[in-house]
């Protein structure tokens, strides 16, 4: 970080129309411009480019950005550039561009000026340089301001307290009925490739009823009759479906039917349970 010159000691601005180097300013310039070459490299690393270097040259002499003694500043700047070029050529391009610009401004200031019309403002050749220097100076100060703000992980620390017995409430996967149909369809397609086993769509209600009957029988204390496995509200269709489901289950030996005597209704129970037990 380069120390800026203390404010408050700026020179009084001279009328800008004087396009000449002001000798009185030159005599007040400090004579410590020479920096040993090994130190220069370090110093140059502190500069963020030609504007930064210029700003440094201007501020260390308490000069007003708005009233730059171009000839003197250019001379100093060139001194740095010469050293820079001898050490770090790859850095030079932007600095050289600035050097050329400064030289141009200087030459324009030295040229005799055409008489100015009464209602015309005289344009100062330094105007663009001044504008850019001011702009850069503002951003430099803004950068310092930002750097001074409290900052997380440097000046601010958020709470990061442990949570014991962390049991993340992981919502279980959501499954839509359509996903199931797709999974089944994919299965059918795939199974055709590796098995002789055929999968076919089926009438669901029978299968569903088979499950229901099995569940019912499993939960029942003893054997149940067919009547207990359907409700009247289901109508005849319900009875037929239940009957077919029971037949299926009997055929698959998942359910046994037992008739205690010829007139009695069949008593159904899960296969493998002793009918008398």
């Amino acid at each position, binding site marked *: 970080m380069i120390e800026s010159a203390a404010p408050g000691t700026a020179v009084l601005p001279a009328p800008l129309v004087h396009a000449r180097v002001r000798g009185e300013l030159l005599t007040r310039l400090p004579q410590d411009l020479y920096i040993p070459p090994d130190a220069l490299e370090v110093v140059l690393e502190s500069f963020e480019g030609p504007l930064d270097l210029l700003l440094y040259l201007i501020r260390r002499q308490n000069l007003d950005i708005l009233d730059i003694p171009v000839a003197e500043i250019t001379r100093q700047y060139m001194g740095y550039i010469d050293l820079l070029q001898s050490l770090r050529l790859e850095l030079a391009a932007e600095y050289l561009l600035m050097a050329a610009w400064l030289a141009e401004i200087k030459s324009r200031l030295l040229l005799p000026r055409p008489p100015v019309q009464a209602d015309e403002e005289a344009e100062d050749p330094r105007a663009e340089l001044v504008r850019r220097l001011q702009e850069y100076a503002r951003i430099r100060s803004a950068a310092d301001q930002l750097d001074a703000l409290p900052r997380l992980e440097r000046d601010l620390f958020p709470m990061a307290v442990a949570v014991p017995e962390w049991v993340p409430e992981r919502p279980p*996967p959501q499954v839509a009925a359509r996903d199931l149909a797709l999974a089944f369809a*994919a299965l059918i397609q795939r199974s055709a490739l590796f098995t002789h086993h055929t999968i076919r769509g089926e009438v669901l209600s029978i299968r569903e009823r088979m499950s229901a009957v099995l569940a019912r029988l499993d939960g029942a204390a003893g054997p149940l009759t067919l009547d207990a496995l359907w409700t009247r509200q289901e109508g005849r269709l319900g009875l037929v479906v239940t009957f077919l489901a029971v037949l299926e289950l009997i055929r*698959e030996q998942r359910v046994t039917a037992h008739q205690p005597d010829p007139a009695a209704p069949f008593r159904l129970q899960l296969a493998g349970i002793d009918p008398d037990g």
Partner: protein
Amino acid sequence: MDERPDPWAEDLRAERGRILEAALSAAGEPIPAARLASLFAPEPLSAAELSAALTWLMESCAQRALELVEVAGGWRLQVRARYAPYVARLQPERPARYSRAVMETLALIAYRQPITRGEIEAVRGVAVSTGILRTLLERGWIQQIGHLERPGRPALYGTTPTFLADLNLRALADLPPLPEASENDPAPMPPITEIADETVPSAADPAR
């Protein structure tokens, strides 16, 4: 000795407690007592001073959602177990997705119930891991609804009312119809009576 608390000493204890609070709040892990004491450089706290400051912090936590505990690695400030569920809510994990194996197994059970594990394996062509069935059982979507009277008495699986409710279905019949038989399977819908014709490779039925 005078028993009245010294206000200056009390302030000092509180300030030390706050320093410990700051360090423990941001650390997120246990800090050994020696490390806590060394925060007060250049003069580390004595064991008694550290203990007093820790006590202050512990007491100041009484009305809070945090507690100071001593664990293996030192002292830790942590959320009280009682409030942990709220923290968990803050970070809802992305809902997991079931693997294809789980989805296919579930589809088979839904559309082909009651069905044995062996039958599922026969169709899927691979073994059904216990984990898959357990996943679906724990979700409350499938249940054992009996046993097949075959050697090994394989369990029969079917879906539960929870399954229907979770999928917003009133009955299994509301499941989407299966796609029309593909060109691989040009046979028309078989009559019901053919259902049992399926080859159920009983040898493939591992008794779970």
